[in-house]
């Protein structure tokens, strides 16, 4: 993940993940937990490279849940949810974005460290054109 420079556009390699919400009783659940936010303490985030990164991270995946089926992994940073940017959100705002009752499907853009490695690796094996 590239370091965040305020005011500059953020460049990252992202993966598109689509999760269908599962109905459990009265609730629609996605099957993962989030942590982080601009109102939280970024130093305690175990998944981030840069300890000043206040983005939303996936901290836990419920086994057998919709997120696990959609191949969301622990440690992923959520960049967009259904088109809305998540990099500058408070924790509560992020939660609300993910748990809207009238949405059945959430389309996430997530980034993880291994993606960058894979891209670099694949770029390196082809000559520049």
């Amino acid at each position, binding site marked *: 993940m590239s370091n965040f420079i305020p005011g500059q556009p953020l460049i990252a390699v992202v993966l598109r993940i689509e999760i269908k919400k599962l109905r459990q009783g009265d609730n629609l*659940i996605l099957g*993962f*937990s*989030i*942590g982080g936010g601009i109102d*939280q303490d970024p130093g305690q985030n175990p998944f981030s490279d840069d300890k000043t990164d206040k983005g939303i991270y996936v*901290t*836990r995946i419920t086994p057998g849940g919709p997120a696990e089926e959609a191949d969301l992994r622990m440690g992923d940073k959520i960049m967009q949810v259904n088109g809305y940017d998540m990099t500058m959100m408070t*924790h509560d705002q992020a939660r609300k974005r993910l748990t809207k009752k009238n949405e059945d499907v959430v389309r996430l853009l997530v980034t993880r460290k291994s993606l960058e490695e894979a891209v670099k690796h694949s770029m390196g094996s082809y000559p520049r054109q």
Partner: protein
Amino acid sequence: MDTESTYSGYSYYSGRSRGSHRHGERSRDRHKSRNKDSRSEKSVTINTPPAEPLLGDSAVRGEQVQDDNWGETTTAVTGTSEHSLSQEDIVRITKDLEDSVGLDCRRYFTLTLAVILGLLVFLTPVAFLVLPHILWPEKLQSCGTACEGLFISVAFKLLILLLAVWALFFRSPRAGLPRVFVFRALLAVLVLLFVVSYWLFYGVRILDAQDENYQGIVQYAVSLVDALLFIHYLAIVLLELRQLQPCYSVCVMRSTDGEMRHYNLGQLSIQRAALAILEHYYCDFPVHNPALLSASKSRAAKHLAGLKVYNVDGPGNNAAAGMAHSQSRAMIAAAARRRDTSHNELYYEEAEHERRVRKRKARLVVAVEEAFTHIKRMQEEEQKKAPGDVMDPREAAQAIFPSMARALQKYLRTTKQQHCHSMESIQQHLAFCITNNMTPKAFLESYLSAGPTLQYSRDHWLARQWTLISEVSVTSGLKDGSIFQLKCADFSLVVTTKKIPYIQMSEEYIDPKSHKFVLRLQSETSV
């Protein structure tokens, strides 16, 4: 590691026959020390020549003939000797020293000198003013208004000087110091020189010439009194103010039990510093109790009594210089090898003593609390109503004392304090506590722990005669690293000095509005 060397020694010894000689023991030492020198600190190589010398001090070494019976007549070190002094003897000797004529003579001599100097100083201005009127009254100009105003000034300044000198110098001496007080002597000499020079000038220029200008003479007298007031200011600064700022930190340690205290002193001479330290000693140090030291003395005696060095090969060739040295090393090595269980005894004895003291203390506290419940203070109104069986504090103390006397006596015996408190003093203290509405705990506090020397009766202040032992002159000032001793009959106080370091302080300003805090949040929500 120690036990290892000891055990091996013993096992080897038991293997040999009972008639092992000293020679064999020595070779064993050498053999062992070669193997274990690096590991065991207690094995010592003894490099003595084959002929061992006699045991004894250097006076005996000159003897050529060995008396076979001398071993039986020498004894190990015991606690007392023939010429022991009892406590009463010491008191008598110190009292004799105090009543000696020499010290008093010096004190009176200084006092008379001071009085003469004072009279000279006070009468000089008056003499300056009066002498012209006596010697040449007709030639003298009459005194105008300004001149008479100066009379008032002289009078009041003399009064102020009198009061100031009374405040600074007319105090009963606290102590007799070994050497003269340097600053006072210097000031006295200065004053004397000053007054003498004024008299000289007066004698030559005014008396001889019979000056008519009386106002000038009065002004001269006023200038003398002014200068005397300034000298008095100098005296205050030198004698009182200079040593107030702390400059040295002294560490005072008592030689018998290692009680240590630290004080801050200013720039003083060694004798004045010693005086200040002694005044602190009486308030701060717990009273010297010789009964508490007897246990360690008996242990030391046991150590020495255990070993004797024998020379089996006969006297004679003892030319080597390090004879006594090798003897003591032999004793140390033998003592190291001996199985010493005195530490065990000490540990259990101390634990047992602790338990006993605590049990006695519990009994004592309960007894005293119960005794205090028998007494009630009568209020004013009640005093008028019931005049019978009313006691004053002393009688009240005597009434409740028997119920706690036994427990208190047992406790004092266990903590070896029984000679510090007499029955009379205990009853006095009890009456004092009752009068001042003290609780039983307050009454007991002075018996539960040893207090400073001031707390006890006057005969405990036996050491009013102290000796100052110092390698440098006692009138020289305190310096960093100076060491001196204050000796009295029973113990000595060793004083070491350290300079208080220069402190460099810097400031840091904190804006009161700059104290801001945030919460450290880390929540995890499941979606």
